[in-house]
């Protein structure tokens, strides 16, 4: 599959009183038509990575190195106008909390009209309104509610509207950042199904940012696991769950309760994620890793190919993979 987005060695930091290394040396691609799950805990850099793709890193945030290529275009060195033509029209984003993204005094239909006209000023109001009507139909919202205000909508319907807005200009990539975290479990399932259906209908690429391994298992084709600003492991979804290579991925999977498994013993990971302003030297996971050895404390591991389409950044895998390739 062709890459739609290619991220090469991207680093982002936030400069306040101290410097927080939010994303460090991340390389990742998003392919045409795939759902890429980007998993991590709070502070892992997953949201910052999504913002970087949208060209939304603003002071005190700075991209300090790396390239982001979208459909052959170098996003870091595009003019503001050119970037505006990509944002919204080619890449759109859905956030966690729809209530803070919708204007409470603006009707639902007007959200669509303003959004569309902001990006495509030549679109008539009538045309924009008809796009809104089509969108509502896609979202399972009756057309009669086009002139309702956001507060008249339930949480799930508001998130549907956000999805509709993101799709209004027919982008090729949607970045969904924790799109269901604020929702209850049944509504979450409804929204995930909607995302899945619309992604297929419009042949989109989807980057789904989440902390929830269950959501990734249900939605993603490939998974990238982030920890403390770095990619720990990337692999096809079944491989991540059935044959995780990075000690962090393994530990994370052992630590989540699963309602379908009887009497699963939860393993605990000692400690907590490191501070981004004062990260440990070497591999960021080493203070919590049961297999850490001297080198892990001194050197940052590079990604190692661990199989088809699979990479993990861990020194333990060097020997293993070398042996494997000798066969």
């Amino acid at each position, binding site marked *: 599959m062709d890459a739609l987005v290619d991220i090469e060695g991207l680093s982002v930091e936030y400069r306040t009183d101290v410097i927080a290394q939010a994303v460090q040396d991340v390389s990742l691609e998003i392919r045409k038509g795939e759902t890429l799950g980007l998993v991590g805990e709070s502070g892992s850099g997953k949201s910052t990575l999504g913002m970087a793709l949208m060209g939304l890193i603003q002071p005190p945030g700075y991209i300090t190195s790396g390239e982001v290529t979208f459909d052959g275009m170098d996003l870091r060195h595009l003019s503001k106008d050119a970037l505006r033509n990509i944002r919204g029209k080619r890449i759109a984003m859905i956030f966690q909390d729809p209530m803070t993204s919708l204007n409470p005094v603006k009707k639902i239909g007007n959200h669509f009209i303003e959004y569309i006209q902001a990006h495509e000023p030549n679109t008539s109001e009538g045309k924009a309104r008809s796009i809104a009507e089509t969108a509502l139909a896609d979202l399972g919202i009756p057309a009669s509610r086009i002139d309702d205000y956001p507060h008249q909508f339930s949480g799930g319907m508001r998130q549907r509207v956000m999805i509709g807005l993101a799709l209004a200009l027919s982008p090729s990539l949607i970045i969904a950042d924790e799109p269901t975290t604020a929702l209850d*479990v*049944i509504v979450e399932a*409804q929204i995930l*199904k909607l995302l899945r259906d619309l992604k297929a209908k419009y042949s989109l690429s989807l980057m789904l940012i989440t902390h929830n391994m269950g959501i990734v*298992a*249900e939605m*993603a084709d490939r998974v990238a696991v982030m920890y403390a600003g770095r990619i720990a492991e990337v692999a096809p979804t079944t491989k991540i769950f059935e044959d995780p290579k990075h000690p962090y991925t393994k530990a994370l999977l052992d630590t989540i309760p699963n309602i379908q498994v009887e009497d699963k013993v939860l393993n605990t990971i000692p400690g907590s994620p490191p501070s981004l302003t004062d990260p440990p030297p070497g591999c960021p996971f080493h203070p919590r890793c049961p297999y850490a050895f001297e080198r892990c404390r001194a050197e940052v591991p590079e990604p190692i190919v661990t199989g088809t389409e699979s990479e993990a950044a861990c020194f333990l895998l060097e020997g293993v993979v070398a042996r494997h390739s000798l066969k």
Partner: protein
Amino acid sequence: MAQLLSRTGESVKAVDNVTFDVEKGDVFGLVGESGSGKTTTGKITAGLLRPTSGKVMIDGVDLYTLERKKLRAFRRKMQFVFQDPLSSLNPKMTIGNAIAEPLRYLSDVPASKRRDQVLEILERVGLSPADSFYSRYPHHLSGGQRQRVVIARAISIDPEYLIADEPVAMVDVSVRAQIIELLLKMQRELNLTILLITHDLAVAKYMCNKISVMYLGKIMESGRRKDIFANPLHPYTQALLQAVPIPNPRQRSDKQIPLGEIPSALNPPAGCVFHPRCPFVFGRCSVEVPELLERDAGHFVACHLYSGK
């Protein structure tokens, strides 16, 4: 049994005709979505909110017939752990003082022994070495450590009953298991009775022996863990279990997800409160409120599909 009308202009029946028993030394789960009344129910059981009708019996004593002083004495046996540790802790108070506070006001521990007692509790909840945590402030700690402090403070006066309201909802995924295990360890060591309030079925399954599923202020189904998870009877429980994302990519399936969302408690549906979303709805459901009836030993369900059979 508790029935509550919170009086904020319009009255909302947050909790309606709720009945359950929590056995001593057990971990009991109240599971539900937001707006289901689970937190309100938790507060009522702790004597923090007087119900408009119904009784809360603790150790054979009807909590809300107690006079004020006695009620306060009773409350010493109960402690809370809330979702957000940062808002539960005073940012200007050291960890040591935060834990010493309940000891000062609610226990007989003499001032001279307080510090030692606090250090012991800190070790007990895994904040070790305790000395190094004693004089730190909440903002020096990680989210998981803060929740340990909140648990430490809750157990400091040796309570019998702990209400844990979404204790891991705001804790990082990699730290959640630690907090779950800590709560279970405290429960065993101190013979605590825990009421776990959660929206997370997987957490409830891991921690609880008995569970009640709530929806719009009512209990839909109650039973032992295996009743609820292996043999869910109520269509709402079935829907909840269906909806939970399973961390196994080979189990993707087309789910039957109920339409719509939990309605407003201001204007709840007539009859069974779940009927507008229920795939098995029939005539009686929109008219008559189903009673919570025992279907199998210890397994209760409030659904007309099972009543009268």
